[in-house]
C-alpha cells in the first residue's frame, strides 16, 4: 500500500479538520456545533485509517483498532453534548450558544 500519496490523504483530513474547526468557531446553534465537532473528530479518525493502510502488517492493525475505538468515543462525547443541549433548552428555551452570556461581565 506504500504507493498511496501521503500528502493527498493528510491534506484531505487536514481540510476536514479545518471545516470542523471553522464550524465550531462560527456556528451559534448547539446542534450544528455538535455536527462540526463530529466532522473535526473524523479528521483524526480518517488519519488513523489511512496511516494503518499505509503502514500495513500487524503494526497497521493498531491504527484500525484505534479508529474503531475512536468512533465509539466520538459517539459517547456527542451523547453527553446532547444531554447538555436538552437541559439547556429546558432551562432557557433556546439552544443558541451566543445567548448564554451571563458569565462574562
Amino acid at each position, binding site marked *: 500500500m506504500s504507493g498511496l500519496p501521503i500528502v493527498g490523504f493528510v491534506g484531505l483530513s487536514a481540510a476536514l479538520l479545518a471545516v470542523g*474547526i471553522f464550524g465550531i468557531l462560527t456556528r451559534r446553534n448547539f446542534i450544528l456545533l455538535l455536527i462540526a*465537532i463530529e466532522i473535526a473528530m473524523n479528521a483524526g479518525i480518517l488519519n*488513523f485509517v489511512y496511516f494503518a493502510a499505509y503502514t500495513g502488517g500487524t*503494526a497497521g492493525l493498531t491504527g484500525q483498532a484505534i479508529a474503531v475505538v475512536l468512533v465509539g468515543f466520538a459517539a459517547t462525547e456527542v451523547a*453527553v453534548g446532547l444531554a447538555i443541549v436538552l437541559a439547556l433548552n429546558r432551562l432557557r428555551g433556546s439552544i443558541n450558544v451566543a445567548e448564554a452570556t451571563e*458569565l462574562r461581565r
Partner: protein
Amino acid sequence: MDVASFAGPFLPEILLLAGTLLVFLLDVVRVRRNEVVGAVTVLGMALALLFVLADLGFAPIAGLATISSGGIDTVPSGTPLYAVTSLGLVFQAIFLLAGLLVALASLSRPSRERGAPIFFGLLSLATLGMLLVAIASDLIFLLLSIEITSIATYLLVAYTRRDARSMEAAMKMYIIGALSTTLSFFGASLLYGAYGTTNLYAIRAVAGTGGYPVLVLLGYGFLIVGLAFKATLVPFHAWAVDVYDGAPTDVTAFLAGGSKKVGLFAFFLVFLGPVLLARTAPSGGPFTNGAVALGPVLQVTLSVLAVVTMTVGNVLALLQKEMKRMLAYSSISQAGYMLIGVAIGTAPALAGATLQMFAHVFMKGAAFLLVAGVAAWGVGPLIEDWRGLGTRRPLTAVAFALMLLSLAGVPLTIGFVSKFVLFSAAVQAQGYFVWLAVAGLLNSALSVFYYARVLKVIFFEAPAPRSEPLGVVAGASEPEVLPAGGFGYGRATAIALAVIVIVAVGVYPQPVLGAIQAAAQQFVSLGP
C-alpha cells in the same frame, strides 16, 4: 495473565469503579442521603489512596503493596498500554487527595441541595480517569483516560441543571473540551503516521527513524495546543475562568485542584522524551529530522508558554473584583509555574513541578472549598463582601489567609518550598532557563499584591452591616446551622487537613520532598 497479577496495578482504579457503581446502585434503590453516598465515595477513595501509598513503599503500610517491586520503574517490554512508574504513583496520590478533599467537604452540603448520587458517582468516575492517566504509557490510552475525566467533569459542572450559570459553564466547557480533544487526537494520528506506533516508550526508541519531520512537528504542535486547553495555559485559558466562576464551587475546587493537573501530567508523559533527548544530546539527538531538532524547539515553546501563562494569569488576577474569578486567574498563573518543570526536564525541576501540583491541591483546592462554605452563608461573590470576616470569623479567616500566603510563596508554607525547589532547579539548569526563574520570582512578587489586597479587606476593613449572623445557611426556608463553625464536619475536616499539610510540609518538607525527588529521578532515567 492471571486475575491477581492483573488486578495488582489496577486495584485503586477497581476500588473507585466499585465505588461509582455502588453509588449509582444506591440511587436506584432510593438511598440518596448525602452522608451515606458521600461516605461510600470517601471510603473508596481512602482505600485507593492507602494502596497507592503502600505501592510507593511508605514504611508502616508497605506490606499492603499490590505491585511487586520489579513491576515499578521498569521499561515495559513490548508495547503495553500502561506502565507503573513511581512518579505516576505520586500523581495518583495527588489526584486521590484532591478527590478526597472535595468528597469530604461535600459530605456537609446543605441538606436542601439535591443530586448527591450524581455528584459523588461522577466525582469518583472523574478520579478514576485521572488515576489511569497517571499510569498510561500509550498515547491513545492517555488521551482516552483524559476523556473519561473530561466527560465526567462536564457532567459534574452541569449536575445542578436548574442553575443557569452552571449550565452555561458546562456548555462552554463542553465546546472547548471537545475542540481540544479533536486537536489532541489529530496530533496523535500524525505521530502514529510518522512513527507507526502510539506507545510512548516505543516512540522514544524509534524516534530518529521516522521519515516525515513535518508530520512529527505538526503532531507535537497539535498535541501542545490540545493539552494546553486542558491544562489552562495562556492563550488557551479563556474558558477556564468562566467555567470556574459558573460551576458549583465544590466542583470548581475539583477542577482547579484536581482535574486540570491531568493535562499537566500529560505534558510530562508526552513531551519529556523529546526534551530529555535534547538535554543528553544537544544537537537534538535521535529526534533530529533534517534541519529541525525537535527537543530544543519544544523547550523554547514550553518556556514561552510558561512565562506567558504566569504573567497573563497574574496581571488579570490583579484586575478582578470577584473572589472566585480572582482565584481562577491565580490558578491559571500557577499552571505556568508547573510547566517550567517540563520545559527544563531535569529531575530537580520535575520534582519542583510535582511538589507545586501537590501543594496546589491543598492551597487552591481547599481555598475554593472554603469559599463555597462561606458563600453558603449568603456572603456575596465580590471580594468586598468579605470585609470584616477576620473579626467575625477569626478561625476561618486565618485558614484562608494561610492558603493565600502559601499561594504567594511566603516562607514556612508549602508554597515557598515548592517554588524554591522549582526556581533553584531552573537556575541550576543554566542557559536561558535562568530567566524562567527570574520570571517566576517577579511573578510571585506580583501575585503578593492581589493576595495582600484580599487579606487587607478581610482583616482591616469594618464588617458590612447585615441582618443575619454568619454561619447560617442562607436562602433556606427554615434556618439551618451546620455544625463545626457553620461549615459542617466534613468541610471543616477537609479545610483543617489542608491547613495542616500547608504548614507541616512548609516547616518540615523532607518526607514528602524526598519521595517526590526520588520518583522524579527514576522518571527521568527511564520515562517515556
